[in-house]
């Protein structure tokens, strides 16, 4: 999504968000992410108002003091930025890819099932299966921090069974153009 993104040409406008809208965003985030109110308030205090940065292709980035915090495509789920995931790695369900897949992910490729089901990879056990269409944080074998964010294209059990094709569609990854944007 952010493989090619430059703030000068792709941003169409910045507006501050209405308080009522902010309230609904806040409650949405609390229900979508594994995060409690206190933690959320650490990086997004109640009194601070968000800036909505509208970008091409219906991407909206929400920023606080110019620093992007999370973004959304159409009115889909909210994704935190990768820097936020580094700070609070528990907010999204986690999957892990093996070492061989890292360089492809860093080139912006979608994640194929074998990279997730192999020995180096990790998918949650059957009882906490991740449904398709869920934002996930992608970690890497032998690494401590997340390397990208994606959205599952099939249930994790299905990934195990089918074990081919795209399992997770990459949304943002380390070193893409959103990563390069420090402030908007």
């Amino acid at each position, binding site marked *: 999504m952010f493989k090619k993104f430059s703030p000068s040409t792709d941003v169409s406008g910045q507006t501050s968000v209405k308080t009522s809208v902010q309230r609904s965003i806040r409650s949405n985030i609390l229900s979508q992410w594994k995060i409690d109110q206190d933690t959320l308030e650490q990086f997004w205090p109640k009194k601070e108002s968000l800036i909505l940065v509208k970008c091409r292709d219906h991407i909206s980035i929400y920023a606080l003091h110019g620093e992007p915090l999370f973004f959304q495509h159409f009115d889909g789920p909210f994704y935190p930025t990768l820097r936020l995931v*580094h700070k609070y790695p528990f907010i999204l369900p986690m999957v892990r890819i093996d*070492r061989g897949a890292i360089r492809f992910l860093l080139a912006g490729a979608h994640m194929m099932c074998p990279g997730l089901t192999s020995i180096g990879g990790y998918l949650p056990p059957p009882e906490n299966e991740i449904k398709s269409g869920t934002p996930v944080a992608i970690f890497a074998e032998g690494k401590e921090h997340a390397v990208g964010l994606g959205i599952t294209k099939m249930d994790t059990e299905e990934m195990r069974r089918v074990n081919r094709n795209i399992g997770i569609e990459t949304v943002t990854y380390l070193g893409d153009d959103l990563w390069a944007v420090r402030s908007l």
Partner: protein
Amino acid sequence: MASTTEQPTSQAIPPIKVRYCEVCTFPLEYCEFGSSFTKCKESLLEEDQDLYDKFYSEEALAKKIGTLSVEDQTKLEKDTAAKEVKAEKKADAALKKKLASQVTIKRIERNKRKFVTSVHGLEAFDVDLKKAAKQFAQKFATGASVTKNPQGQDEIVIQGDVSADVVEMIEDGVGVLKNVPKDNIVEVEEKKKKGGD
């Protein structure tokens, strides 16, 4: 970060501090996948010996390979090296281009004795065009704006014939113009073409 007024029972989970590489901006452990691995390594060695050992000592390297087969690992290393060379070449080319790029100051005749001055090529020297336009406008007390020229590139158009003053300003490096080398300035004059000619 916990203030004294906060209840100790607060559920807030403190953020994890991640150290990012100064060279490639990745978290330190991902430097090896970046395009400037050797530079990253050097800078880390200078700054923090312990951390360097954690990532790049012999046993750490051996452990890192994990489930990857040896051929894959060598392939990856080769890839990284190639990428590095490529990135370096690219940076070199960009620098050369920057040094060779010119700032064109054009005096355009608008209507017999009226002129506008257009300044083109400042963006190659990391000048924020909007800020520069504002600065020109303030200095000359005229209108100055960032517009797209027919080629689709951004340029600053200043009302009035101020070409000499603009050159002077760039030479002195006033305000946002301080990084612009004065050898690269070209002054051009453009007369309005007559329709019947």
